[in-house]
């Protein structure tokens, strides 16, 4: 069984149901990728896993423990972290302060983790005293990921980490994500740049209208003619 298992999630906003029984998994050291058209419910699924969206059926299990009914904060304490799609940094705080706030709940010294993050994202080390609002798109996303890593999570949920990032930076960002996974962290991310993302995916999920349409390894999905035609633009 996978480290993170979200099974048959049903839920949405208010009376509108967006997820109609969608299932996702992620494993430590592996990358799971969700792709699908705009409005398919990818972001909603991630929020449901973190407990930000009300779920009426289905379950979320992390490391064998059921998380149902827990608040987002409680889930963060159990090792989950999320990088939201937008507004994922504190713009008027410095890079370093952003990372410190990521570790807000920690009571132990955070300096080692800070240094690890700066090693992982050298550009952040150079900019540690700059305000986050002045970073470029790619730098900001690295900061957002760094911020999420400050709690030393076992699982990181990434909502479109390459959205709004210059095309030449996208490959660098994916490299960074691979390096994060190499630290034995389970990654679950959704992406608009579907073919690039599936190329680094250990598992891929194609989501349509809140339901799983296809599931398979990255290469499998990339080779699937139907997936290519409908979701990867031929």
């Amino acid at each position, binding site marked *: 069984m996978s480290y993170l298992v979200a099974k048959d999630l049903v839920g949405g906003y208010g009376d509108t149901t967006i997820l109609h029984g969608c299932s996702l998994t992620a494993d430590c050291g592996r990358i799971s990728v969700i792709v699908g058209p705009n409005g398919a419910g990818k972001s909603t699924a991630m929020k449901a896993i973190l407990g930000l969206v009300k779920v009426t059926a289905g379950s979320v299990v992390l490391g064998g423990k059921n998380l149902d009914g827990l608040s987002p904060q409680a889930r963060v304490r159990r090792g989950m972290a999320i990088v939201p799609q937008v507004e994922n*940094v*504190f713009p008027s705080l410095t890079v370093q302060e952003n990372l410190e706030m990521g570790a807000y709940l920690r009571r132990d010294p955070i300096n080692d983790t800070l240094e690890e993050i700066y090693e992982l994202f050298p550009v952040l080390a150079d900019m540690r005293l700059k305000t986050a609002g002045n970073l470029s798109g790619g730098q900001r996303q690295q900061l957002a990921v760094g911020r999420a890593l400050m709690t030393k999570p076992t699982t990181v949920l990434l909502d479109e980490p390459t959205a709004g990032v210059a095309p030449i930076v996208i490959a660098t960002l994916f490299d960074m994500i691979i390096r994060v996974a190499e630290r034995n962290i389970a990654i679950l991310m959704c992406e608009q740049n579907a073919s690039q993302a599936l190329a680094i995916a250990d598992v891929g999920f194609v989501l349509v209208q809140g339901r799983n349409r296809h599931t398979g390894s990255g290469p499998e999905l990339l080779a699937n003619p139907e997936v290519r035609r409908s979701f990867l633009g031929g």
Partner: protein
Amino acid sequence: MEAVNALVLLGNYVIVPGLAYGSQLGLSALGVTLIYGVLRFSNFAHGDTMAFGAMIALLVTWLLQSMEISIAPLPTALLALPVAIAGTALLVLAFDYGVYRHFRRVKASPVVFVIASTGVMFVMQGLIRFIVGPNDRNLADGSRFIVRARDFKDAFGLNEGLAIKASQVLTLGITIVLVLWLFWFLHRTKTGKAMRAYADNEDLARLSGISPQTVVMLAWTLTAALATTAGVLYGLDKTFKPLIYFHLLLPTFAAAIVGGLGNPLGALAGGFIVAFSEIGITYAYKRFLVYILPESMEPAGLVQLLSTEYKFAVSFFILVVVLLVRPTGIFAGRSA
């Protein structure tokens, strides 16, 4: 000599009073901007929060005076200040618990908060009138002047004298200490950073485990401290009169908005901009010009751009111009 006289004149009537009034407005605007940054609404009860704080200081001052406790030459009100801050903090926290918390729960729009704060304002006004009445009260005791105009004249052999009131020096000194402390707190402590983070991005702050309740309570406490200090300093400098504090609401908001709502440094700068505009525009420059112009060009009138009764028009004008030309303030803040 003429030029020195002109400078001393300006110092006496514009610069020294402007520095004191600017500090008072700056402290007051800091309170408004903190609440805006954290709770996202313009707190119309802020003027009366100042009045309430100054009132407690007045009551405690009376008590101390009756017990013949004094810290002369410093005013007794200074000794009363911590008590006044604590009392005001309790009051605003009670209003938060009884009023604003409900509107946060139902996720009310900012307009609803503003109207609620207007209600709170009326309640505070009633409370204050009930306790001390509407009249002028003297808050100041201790020594009044640090430099007297006459002594200054005699010492330097000038026509013009520079008077420096104890309250003006106190205002400046306390403002510097309080502002330095506030910025240290906001930028160097974990709690202060969490507060800025919350003001920046509430959702992400929650996800990071920052407790909204703690941040909100802290914001109210800091605001109570800033408002009370501003109110007491203003009362020492001028006089304690409940209605005056209500009138300070306009220049306070002008200062906060000029500086960019939610921007502490801007609020402080805004306080001085508004204070110097108000005093500079309502000052009659005739005597000043007599000193620096040749006799032939001596002005006939008072050379006063606006009579003192209209000083609030200056704040109003600044407010309107900023909102029209640059709604986020001179220093980028949130949109007003």
